[in-house]
């Protein structure tokens, strides 16, 4: 819907449980390009950033995501997101 030519923008990304361990970080702020529209796009881009990301996202089916602290599916649009989180299926209780 938005006009093309979006500048890159900053988004905060958080990792929990074994995604935190595999990526080696719990939080980072990244610059993402205008071509990255959905959670899936973001995962694909993150995997290209290095072997630790490649390992963390090797089985995308076991990774869950949240945008601004709300559960979302992998096809969710990330426009406007301030904080995106990746984590395994939850195991509390």
């Amino acid at each position, binding site marked *: 819907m938005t006009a093309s030519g979006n500048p890159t923008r900053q988004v905060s990304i*958080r990792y*929990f*449980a*074994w995604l*935190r361990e595999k990526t080696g970080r719990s939080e980072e702020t990244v610059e993402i390009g205008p071509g990255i529209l959905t959670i899936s796009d973001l995962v694909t881009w993150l995997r290209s950033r290095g072997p630790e990301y490649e390992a963390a996202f090797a089985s995308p089916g076991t990774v869950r995501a*949240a945008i601004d*602290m*709300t*559960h979302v599916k992998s096809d969710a649009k990330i426009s406007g997101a301030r904080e995106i*989180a990746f*984590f*395994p*299926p*939850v*195991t*509390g*209780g």
Partner: protein
Amino acid sequence: MSVSVEEKDFDISAEINALTLGNTGIGAVATFIGKVRGEAHGNKLQSMTLEHYPGMTEAELSDIEQEAVMRFHLSASRIVHRIGPLQPGENIVLVITCAAHRSDAFAACEFLMDYLKTRAPFWKKETGVTGEGRWVDARECDEAALTRWLKPA
């Protein structure tokens, strides 16, 4: 109606008293306590560590609680979930539901646990007696348990 995420243990008597004192409309109080077991999948545990997503946890738990209050006409409710390292036998989670009648209190308590197990962003890591760590896998039966709440009661 309130939610807490904390390292320290809870006091079930004090929590129930806080919910029920002075409210004589309450005829039924259902509670659930989840505890760390000493063994999982045949492996003896030394400890279990609970990680969570601060902010999202409280938001999810509050949403779930609000849904339960409306759906089951609760007079009062409470969720306490612990985080950090826990030993076998220690408490993990407390859910309390108060209603006029037992069917609502029981149903709400099970509803809260089913949703908490599949929606609240907590993750358990087990440490075995030989020191090795292992992230607990989500159980399919927890996801399946949700389906019974899809139809209005």
